[in-house]
């Protein structure tokens, strides 16, 4: 089953993508019907949606690379929190230049991911457990570093009085809008991450290695794919994306919250799968993940615009996720 699929990969991916479009179109149609007094037809609603999904989308970019390789990365939400706290700590109380902090935090994310990749590739531990351990560890470290409190722009002195810290311009630059206030900068960051993932998966040798590894690990190993390096790269890339997302989150909240990003990994996985990338690896691609991101984002937006109760939202999200996946599978050629 997996071998012919691996051989026909480009065509299968295309079909998966076409199928991924249908749930998105269905949800857009729902939005047009339940348009909340025409709010759905205003561009600002869509600009807001594109901002809201960006952080999740950035995580989903890294997640796609990991899932294509046949793995899973549960640590991205916690890493996001750790990186948000680290970035806020470095820039606010410690007052480091934003550029330096940016590089340090991106390196931290990539290093944490690479460590997970090392444990998975070199010691052959299951990705589920390794990244679960990193999930717990990174959240603990975020709380330890921040002392359990949000790292904010207010610093308490020895006398108990609060002083306001200077906020580096990078914060407002990341949370700004461009093109006449029509597009958020974080959306552009998401687009850049998606572009980078596309280059990695489609235009680099490592991309072919990743697909080969996810399609059939044994065959890939025998045909000379550098398995350890490739896996390390996949998780490091995912960690890097989590760091980018963490910096965007800190910039948008104007603080480093050690609790932020909890549960985001599940949204990121759902987005990747909604795009038609198989959890078993070896297929799919970033373009379809972007569609998955928009599908889940628009679903949340339509429910939110119409002020559905949270209970109903959770149930509807579950039902629609299953329907979307069933719909994809039904049209799979047997």
């Amino acid at each position: 089953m997996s071998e012919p699929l691996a051989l026909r990969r480009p065509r299968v991916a295309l079909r998966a993508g076409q199928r991924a479009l249908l749930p998105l179109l269905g949800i857009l149609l729902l939005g047009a019907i339940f348009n909340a007094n025409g709010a759905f037809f205003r561009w600002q609603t869509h600009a807001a949606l594109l901002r809201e999904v960006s952080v999740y989308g950035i995580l989903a970019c890294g997640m796609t690379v990991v899932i294509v390789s046949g793995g899973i990365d549960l640590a991205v939400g916690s890493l996001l929190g750790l990186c948000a706290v680290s970035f806020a700590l470095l820039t606010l109380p410690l007052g480091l230049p934003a550029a330096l902090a940016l590089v340090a935090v991106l390196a931290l994310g990539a290093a944490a991911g690479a460590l997970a990749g090392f444990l998975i590739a070199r010691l052959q531990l299951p990705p589920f457990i390794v990244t679960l351990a990193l999930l717990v560890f990174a959240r603990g470290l975020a709380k330890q570093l921040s002392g359990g409190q949000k790292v904010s722009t207010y610093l308490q002195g020895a006398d108990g009085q609060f002083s306001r810290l200077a906020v580096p311009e990078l914060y407002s630059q990341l949370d700004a809008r461009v093109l006449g206030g029509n597009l958020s900068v974080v959306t552009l960051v998401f687009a850049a991450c998606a572009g980078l993932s596309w280059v990695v998966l489609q235009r680099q040798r490592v991309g072919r290695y990743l697909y080969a590894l996810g399609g059939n690990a044994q065959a890939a190993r025998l045909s000379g794919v550098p398995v350890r390096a490739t896996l390390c790269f996949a998780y490091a890339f995912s960690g890097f994306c989590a760091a980018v997302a963490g910096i965007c989150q800190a910039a948008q909240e104007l603080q480093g919250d050690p609790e932020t990003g909890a549960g985001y990994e599940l949204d990121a996985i759902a987005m990747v799968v909604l795009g038609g990338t198989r959890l078993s690896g070896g297929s799919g691609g970033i373009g379809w993940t972007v569609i998955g991101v928009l599908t889940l984002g628009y679903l949340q937006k339509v429910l939110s615009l119409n002020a559905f109760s949270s209970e109903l939202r959770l149930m509807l999200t579950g039902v629609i996720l299953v329907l979307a996946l069933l719909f994809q599978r039904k049209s799979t050629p047997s």
Partner: protein
Amino acid sequence: MHTRRGWFAGVALGLGLLALSCERKSAAPVGTGGASTSTGGPAPKPFLIGVSQSNLGEPYRVQMNADLAREAKAHPELSLVFKDAQNDSLRQRAQVEELVSQGVQLLIISPKEGAPLTAPVAAVYDQGMPVIVLDRRVEGDRFSVFIGPDNRRIGQAAGKWAVSALAGKGKLVELEGLMTSSPARERHDGFWEGVQREQNPGIEVLFSADTQWLEPNARREMESALAAHPHIDLVFAHNDPGAHGAYLAAKAAGREQEMKFIGIDALPQEGVQYVRDGWLDVTFAYSTCAKEAIDTALALRDQRPVPKEIIVGTRRFEAGNVAQGGVPIEGL
């Protein structure tokens, strides 16, 4: 295979050691008195207090522990031992038993949930040890004192403020906390009792959503509210981070001047600073009750009479009074 297992054991051991060291750190006594209880030396006689905290994930609870430690510092004979139950009732139950066997002389507990911790608290109380229950209640009356703020009354104060700020007429957005948690429900109920809708029919809810206390969620919901409604007079958020998320959304839409913002909690590094910055119109303190807890602990130690229940009042913080530390609210 052997080496792989060895690696795994090493990693597990490392993680375990790390967890242990964290645990030890958080359980370290605060204050100048030693952890030993047996010495009956000259005054001041050391007095060991065990503090069982339900979790340290919420900034409010981190603040509560910090406030307790600060208040205890003024009394050098007091020594505090903290335990964090990490939001797990059974772990908290075990930690209560640990504290007792560690020889604490008084227990302060902020329980995760009332029902599962009623029996452990009662068992400690029946041994003759004074128990102060903080913030959340346990069932029955087998504890010494309950000390807590009243979410419903805080909600009522916020509702009254909203009516007077809107002069009885206006469109509002309510950004709720986690509605399955009792603070969110009580703040919601109290708010609408304070608004008295029968007498103020001009107050209209445009939009309400559950934010689970989270700022990113509040910002997202507020963006939807802004998109669906061309005019909003007031945002009532169940916590200050929710108000902050709403403010950021309104600011991005260039509509932050159009509406007033109400928050709750007034933590010194959050809500109070937001009022100081000028965008948050009002916030109501949800006290950590630390001063009351330490005062009560001293009274219990000296066997002075204490009431069974102490409801700690709220303070209102607005631009005009934030420099003076807010004003107490009458009748609360």
